[in-house]
């Protein structure tokens, strides 16, 4: 068993190092193949572990070696594969495998093909460390590791130059990469603080020991730890107000978006909350706060997706919105529900992104949906996949999204948090609308792509085949809900609906489905026949502009943080460091020298002056004695 753990963990690392060997060489197809196979091996190992744990019900723990030992701190590289981990591992490796295979197609003409695979596999490794670690600091390794890989991958096309926000809202890949990294770092500080609190209060950072001794801590301390860890989660999962990086992260190659910014990395925050469920279940008020934040992000992000024209950004906002759902569930104590939605979302959202990748290829990297349309003809399969994924996203029976999202709404209802329920319900409608707005704009209507001279074509067969597993899972995953619940609740607290909710389930489901359908229908009416732009509306409607400009938050951040920081830095350097601190030092030196220069004037070469000074010296010495007598 332990070997499987190591295989699952290190196969991606080997894969990454292998690819790194050729990082500076021109494309070698073998690299793509080998890495895909190695990730596939990791997938096999993960699934085997999953099944094994399913059978045995026992977690597998291994300790690789010592890491940090200082004072009373003893941190080892330890890995535990339990139910939650196994699910996460399987999801991660599955999506990773698909994305690796797909990337062979997507990146086929990129000159940094090998480098890309190196980064991508490194990401998988980091993600595996993140989910498999048995302690908070190990999690933090993965946490930062995925951050770096994300930075590398967002900035993959580093050579592109900076644009203004009007031309490219993300400015440039390298800019977006830095933004992502720094925003994550802000949150990581919170996480680090949480870890410090845990260490100094419990003397360990190992999950099992920490959770076993939580009762030793005061409530206030628990709240503190809970909030600190959640701040960490907010960064990685791009929750408000640290959300802006996610949309900008779409500058990375599309497979990256599929893997990192949809299926895996961004869900790390949710994973953390789920993992720390013994903690959060003791502090429901923090949980409620998390739920509220999640709910807010859900509708907030969905609203931005309504009007955006950028194919990938829409999906990014949708991801954000779905992450909100997950947090809502986790916050309300329904950890398995959150995990279930996490997995389901990973499948259909990755599918959606990969589909978007196909479209981009066809459109020569054009992302503006207003310049597409009618692609259904040329790209039947892609249309099929994306449509399927959109349906899943909208929560239409019998697709995976239906089960997961519906359960979240039920939980919200069950907790009597009707506000949350209502908001999420409304968001479901919005979700359906923007998903299908996208589908219709891209695949239906008039063929606007001629204007940009694109010659759309379907993706290669193996790429399409690679998408199949995701599509299949997006369809069938929902039916495994019962098994899933049974499996994970061995570890996570079982969440039981109250009697009342049980009675209401049917009504709730109907209501939810209804609003989803409404969304789809509205989208159909508005966009299936082609694009009719109301320029006046686009230019003058305040709400439209607000949404289109992402509530002006990026601009606000630019103005409120980035620019002042830059200016303050300049002041710190030019005004304070140079003019005050250094000038003081130089001033002292200067003063000494000036004093010397002045006093040498007494030495004017004239003997008479010298004699006078000597006589004055007598008086000076007398004065000193007199003064010292007087003072005494």
């Amino acid at each position, binding site marked *: 068993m332990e070997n499987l753990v190591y295989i699952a963990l290190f196969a991606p690392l080997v894969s990454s190092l292998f690819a790194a060997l050729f*990082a*500076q060489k021109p494309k070698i197809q073998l690299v793509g193949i080998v890495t895909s196979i190695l990730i596939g091996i990791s997938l096999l190992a993960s699934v085997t572990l999953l099944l094994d744990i399913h059978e045995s019900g026992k977690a597998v723990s291994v300790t690789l*070696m*010592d*890491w*940090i*030992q*200082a*004072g*009373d*701190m003893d941190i080892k590289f330890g890995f535990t594969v339990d139910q939650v981990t196994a699910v996460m591992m399987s999801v991660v490796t599955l999506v990773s495998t698909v994305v690796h295979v797909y990337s062979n197609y997507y990146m086929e003409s990129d000159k940094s093909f090998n480098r890309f695979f190196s980064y991508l596999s490194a990401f998988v490794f980091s993600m595996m460390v993140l989910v498999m670690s048995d302690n908070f*600091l190990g999690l*933090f*390794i993965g946490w*930062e*590791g995925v951050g*770096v890989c994300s*930075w590398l991958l967002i*900035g993959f096309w*580093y*050579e*592109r*130059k*900076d644009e203004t926000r009007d031309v490219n809202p993300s400015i*440039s*890949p*390298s*800019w977006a990469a*830095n933004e992502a*990294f*720094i925003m994550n*770092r*802000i949150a*990581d*500080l919170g996480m*680090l*603080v949480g*870890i*410090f*609190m845990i*260490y*100094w209060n419990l003397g360990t950072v190992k999950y099992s020991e920490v959770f076993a001794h939580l009762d030793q801590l005061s409530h206030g301390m628990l709240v503190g730890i809970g909030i600190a860890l959640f701040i960490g989660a907010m960064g990685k999962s791009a929750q408000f107000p640290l959300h802006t990086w996610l949309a900008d992260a779409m500058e990375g190659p599309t497979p990256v978006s599929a893997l990192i910014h949809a299926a895996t990395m961004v869900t790390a925050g949710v994973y953390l909350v789920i993992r720390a469920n013994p903690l959060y279940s003791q502090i429901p008020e923090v949980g409620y706060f998390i739920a509220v934040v999640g709910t807010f992000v859900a509708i907030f992000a969905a609203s931005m997706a309504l009007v955006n024209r950028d194919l990938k950004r829409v999906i990014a906002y949708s991801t954000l919105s779905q992450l909100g759902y997950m947090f809502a569930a986790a916050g309300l104590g329904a950890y398995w529900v959150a995990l279930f939605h996490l997995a389901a979302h990973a499948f259909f959202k990755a599918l959606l992104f990969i589909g978007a990748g196909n479209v981009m290829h066809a459109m020569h990297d054009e992302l503006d949906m207003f310049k597409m349309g009618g692609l259904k003809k040329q790209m039947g399969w892609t249309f099929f996949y994306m449509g399927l994924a959109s349906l899943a996203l909208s929560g239409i029976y019998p697709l995976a999204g239906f089960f997961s999202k519906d359960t979240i709404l039920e939980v919200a209802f069950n907790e009597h948090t009707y506000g949350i329920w209502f908001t999420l319900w409304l968001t479901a409608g919005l979700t359906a609308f923007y998903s299908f707005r996208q589908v219709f704009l891209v695949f239906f209507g008039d063929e606007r792509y001629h204007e940009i001279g694109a010659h759309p074509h379907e993706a290669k067969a193996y790429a399409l085949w690679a998408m199949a597993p995701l599509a299949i899972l997006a369809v069938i995953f929902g039916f495994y809900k019962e098994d899933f619940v049974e499996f994970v609740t061995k570890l996570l607290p079982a969440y039981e609906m109250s009697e009342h909710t049980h009675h209401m389930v049917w009504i709730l489901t109907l209501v939810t489905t209804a609003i989803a359908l409404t969304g789809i229908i509205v989208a159909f009416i508005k966009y299936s026949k082609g694009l009719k732009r109301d320029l006046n509306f686009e230019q003058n409607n305040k709400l439209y502009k607000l949404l289109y400009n992402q509530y002006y938050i990026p601009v606000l951040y630019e103005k409120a943080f980035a620019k002042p*920081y*830059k200016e*303050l*830095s*300049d002041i*710190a*350097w*030019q005004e*304070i*460091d140079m003019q005050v*601190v*250094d000038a*003081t*030092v130089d001033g002292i*030196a200067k003063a000494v020298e000036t004093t010397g220069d002045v006093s040498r004037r007494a030495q004017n070469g004239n003997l008479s002056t010298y004699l006078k000074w000597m006589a004055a010296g007598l008086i000076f010495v007398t004065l000193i004695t007199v003064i010292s007598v007087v003072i005494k």
Partner: protein
Amino acid sequence: MSNILSVLIFFPLIAGVFGFFVNKNSIRVYGIVVAAAEFLLSLWLWMSFDTTDAGMQFVEKISLIPEFGISYYLGVDGISLFIVILSTLMTLLGIVALSIKEDLKNMIITLLFLEVAMIGVFVSLDVILFYIFWEFSLVPMLYIIGAWGGPKKLYAAIKFFIYTFAGSLVMLVGILYLAYIYHATTGVWSFSLTDWYGLLLPTDVQTILFWAFFLGFAIKVPMFPFHTWLPYAHGQAPTVGSVILAAVLLKMGSYGFVRFSLPLFPDASVAFILPIAILAIIMIIYTAMVAYAQKDMKQVIAYSSISHMGVIILGTFAMNVEGISGSIFQMLSHGIVSGALFMLVGVIYDRRHTKLMSEFGGLAKVMPTYATIFVVMTMASVGLPLTIGFIGEYLSLAGFFKVSPIMTILAGTSIIVGAVYMLSVVKKSFFGPLANPENEKLKDLDSKELWALVPLVAIVIWLGVYPKPVLEPIDNSTKALVQLMHKKAQTDKAKKIILVSKDAKEAK
């Protein structure tokens, strides 16, 4: 070989003198061979070092001036061992990477003399001996900056010299006062540190002495607001000068805090945690901002050094094993990482004769290996886990969290602001289009540079993943140190804050 420390000190000295007789054309090889031999000797020191022993090892004591209690007293423990190795390593790599053509012979001989002073500082257990090496280290550095530096080299060199000299003179007065107290208490003169450790000082005396020593160390570290010599020194120094300055010389200050201030004045150290932590936090945040404002790549690294040293100081004043071990480890890590970064800046400076980031952009395309190593070092610098940079920073901050959570959070912003300026360097220099036509023909790293940099990359990752061989001896000695401090502490506050680790408590 029980006198290995003497060998370590005198081998480069003699080799440096012999260097005068080596032909100019062969001096480079000579330098590399000598530095490599010295490095191997230091590795041998490590190999024969008993990692379980927390006390001083390889002790040598020869009375020099018995009249005044001054002796030639050497010893090494876990705290100093690795800084010694760092010194020899950085000297070796510095010589390997030397790109200077002019007066190469003088440079290599100077470096060897500098090595003597550096090792001497870290293995001296006699305070006067320590002071001698401490002061003497300024001279070769002055020459290195002044002779091979940039346009403002003289200003920079003299500023460096006088500033640090002034600080250490106040420290000298402190040393003499402490010796006087020792004499007054015991009736004999002694300058051995181990003797002084046994001295219980009244708190008001501790306070005076603490600040006297503080000034010497703080200028060397350099702590805000005594830091302004550093940007000049780095900005003007040749690559090898910056490398050694950042990697080793700055560590003298922080080493001094650990070796002197903490065990000699535990109560005063505890009493002044607050002001020093405030200074450290200012160092961290403020200098990070200043670094962000820089236009010169080397200046960024220079200011980043100050920022990182802030974390080290904070860890030192955490008064618990975690923090102090962390800060010592961070000294090593900063030594390696900033040394490597300075070398990297030197690489591009050799090619383009400018360090202004506005001249660059898109370098990753023409110099991929260079960019890769730079990014690795950047990541180590910003404290990415599994690189060497994380462990020290984490432990230092974790240690200080026990003292003050709020201040630790403020100090913890170093991981954010650090990322801001480092990533902006990477972005400005390596990313974006290759706008400047002068950059199009740049050559990637040559073998000489690779030989210098690859070992550092290896160390960065090795110690990031498996720090135990280094951290364990450090930790052992730190435990002993903290225990000593706890034993010596007189005020209740100090007793409370100085935190002896559990296993040390049990052992007692």
